[in-house]
């Protein structure tokens, strides 16, 4: 099977079976840390973040090919991760609704300082897309256009979501 993969925008890999797996390994090495941090910021739980990162790569592999350059690969992986997070949030909300069980707090991130519970709860109260926009823009420093490109939405839409999310956070945090 011939499959074209471009890594870091520098070289193209014409893959047979071996180079395909090597390319996947290389993409994992390049993007796993960044995806893990984003997953941790979205979920505030180390276990859930690890699951999300692994499932993101598995979903990406299911497509059978990767985007052409590193930036496109990163955007694609971030979008998969955020969508997975949204799916999980939706499912857990339905589960909570039916089981009426208070969800156990996820395992806190290792190495972190004292958890700011108010910030965590305020962020977790936001819809996942708004949460992702707040994290990518306010914490990771992406511009709104870049956030829109990462999430596959227009920059104006990202700005509107950010506005709504900031308003909610100000109300909850009293800032």
């Amino acid at each position, binding site marked *: 099977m011939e499959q074209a993969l471009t890594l870091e925008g520098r070289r193209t890999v014409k893959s047979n079976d071996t180079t395909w797996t090597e390319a996947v*390994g290389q993409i994992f090495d390049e993007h796993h840390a960044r995806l*893990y941090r984003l997953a*941790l910021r979205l979920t505030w739980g180390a276990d859930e973040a690890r699951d999300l990162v692994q499932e993101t790569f598995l979903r990406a*592999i299911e497509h059978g090919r990767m985007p052409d350059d590193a930036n496109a690969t990163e955007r694609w992986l971030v979008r998969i991760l955020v969508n997975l997070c949204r799916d999980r949030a939706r499912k857990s909300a339905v589960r909570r609704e039916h089981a009426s069980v208070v969800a156990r707090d996820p395992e806190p*991130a290792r190495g972190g300082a004292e958890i*700011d519970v108010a910030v965590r709860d305020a962020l977790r109260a936001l819809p996942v897309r708004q949460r992702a926009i707040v994290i990518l823009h306010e914490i990771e420093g992406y511009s709104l256009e870049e956030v829109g490109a990462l999430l596959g939405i227009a920059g104006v839409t990202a700005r509107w979501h950010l506005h709504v999310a900031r308003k909610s956070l100000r109300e909850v945090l009293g800032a």
Partner: protein
Amino acid sequence: MSDNDAVRRRLRDADPAARAELPSEERIAMRRAVVGAAAERTPRQAGRAWILFGATACAAALVIGIAWKTSGTRREPVAPRSVAQVLVASPPEVASTASAPSPSPRAAVAVRHGVRPIVPVPAARAEGTTRIQFVAPEGTRVFWFPNSPNASEVGS
């Protein structure tokens, strides 16, 4: 400092991933799982190609088989009938009816009018049967009067 700056500062101070790293043993295990899944992915695609090829071949064989069977059971063409057969088989002459008056009395041609077929009228409803029962000390006798017009008249 604006409200947005305050929120941003608070979010950054509380960032759970500021110093977080994926532990090396977990990273290695995850990498192995991902690469293993990628290795499994490739032969599965080849397998899918074979399945697709097989399905296409089966569909083609089915279509060819149906076409062959249909052509085998086709009726033999019937030879055209001769003129005599056609004459014999032609429908009997139907009596025509006058549709319009003749233009002149001389040109009048006798026209055989069609005869209305006699349709059997359904039989009249069978009249009732009268039953008269005589009860006496010697015994009981019953008389039946079929097709009697009216029981009251018979009995009167």
